């Protein structure tokens, strides 16, 4: 493309010269389609969806992936990523994934679940799938609240945290304590990789992507059950801006749900 003002073109690119397909270094992964996502502005789900798409693309396993989505905010995950999806009933994604993986042992099978799905209504299915050592990956979005139904208390809601169903704050005598399902997963013999990550900063997003890749490889290589918890924000449910939500998460969620690998039998 001809640069304006003759010789200056060699030194100073125009924006048009720069914005060319060969210079594209990052963008929406091809597996993520153009359907606008229903998630609220700033929702962590979008980032994790993107990471899942990127990892599947990088591994080149589009035709070898079966994904199971939950009931909750991610119920429509099947609309956004161009892979084969099964939408399971509330909490039963791990059961569904167990049979799928056993019947299709060469495929990557993963579930994508929220805290209500995995840590509340589907605790039984989640723990038993982990304990059987099903060769599946479980992506667990923990935002300490029920997002889709409008901000009610979740099993992972922090003590004192206000939600629609604990408007005066979570109290032990009324509501019990937050459930650390990922910590339970660590103690189960069937799990091979348990990690807790977040997607609030570029560095953390990169770590989460690495964790998802590890979990997916474990599923393909029959290493056992992998659990990737992503401590997430729910700006709408928490009644905060996305920026404030990230800050609140850093200050309140991370001390309670500290980030890092909790178990890795490959190491």
């Amino acid at each position, binding site marked *: 493309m001809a640069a304006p003002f003759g010789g200056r073109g060699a030194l100073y690119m125009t924006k048009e010269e*720069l914005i060319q397909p060969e210079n*594209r270094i990052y963008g*929406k992964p091809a597996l993520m389609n153009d359907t606008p996502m229903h998630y609220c502005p700033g929702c962590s789900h979008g980032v994790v969806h993107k990471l899942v798409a990127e990892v599947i693309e990088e591994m080149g396993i589009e035709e070898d992936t079966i994904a199971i989505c939950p009931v909750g905010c991610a119920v429509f995950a099947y609309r956004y990523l161009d892979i084969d999806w099964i939408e399971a009933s509330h909490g039963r994604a791990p059961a569904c994934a167990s049979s799928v993986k056993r019947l299709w042992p060469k495929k990557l099978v993963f579930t994508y679940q929220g805290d209500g799905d995995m840590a509340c209504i589907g605790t039984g299915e989640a723990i038993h799938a982990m304990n059987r050592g099903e060769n599946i990956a479980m992506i667990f979005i923990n935002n300490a609240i029920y997002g889709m139904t409008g901000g009610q208390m979740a099993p992972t809601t922090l003590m004192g945290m206000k939600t629609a169903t604990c408007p005066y704050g979570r109290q032990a005598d009324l509501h019990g304590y937050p459930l650390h399902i990922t910590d339970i997963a660590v103690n189960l013999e069937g799990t091979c990789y348990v990690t807790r990550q977040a997607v609030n900063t570029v560095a953390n997003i990169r770590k989460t992507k690495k964790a998802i890749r590890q979990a997916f490889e474990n599923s393909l290589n029959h290493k056992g059950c992998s659990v990737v918890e992503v401590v997430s924000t729910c700006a709408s449910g928490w009644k905060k801006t996305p920026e404030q939500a990230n800050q609140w998460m850093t200050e309140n969620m991370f001390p309670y749900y500290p980030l890092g690998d909790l178990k890795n039998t490959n190491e």
Partner: protein
Amino acid sequence: MAKMRGAIVVDIERCKGCNLCTIACPLNLVTLSATVNHKGYNYAEQTDWEKCNGCTSCAIVCPDGCITVYRKKEE
């Protein structure tokens, strides 16, 4: 002197104006527009593209995958 030059393209209609990209940009080159898209969101836009080095931070944090980053080394 070789210098990394970058630029972003925002999918304006997908953008929900969550503002995470403006916080993520280490050079403070992204801002929300004064005008709105069809959904009514103030969308992200680059203020000073000439300073952008294409670090991709804004695009990585974008939950909706609205930002495409282009980068080239300028000799």
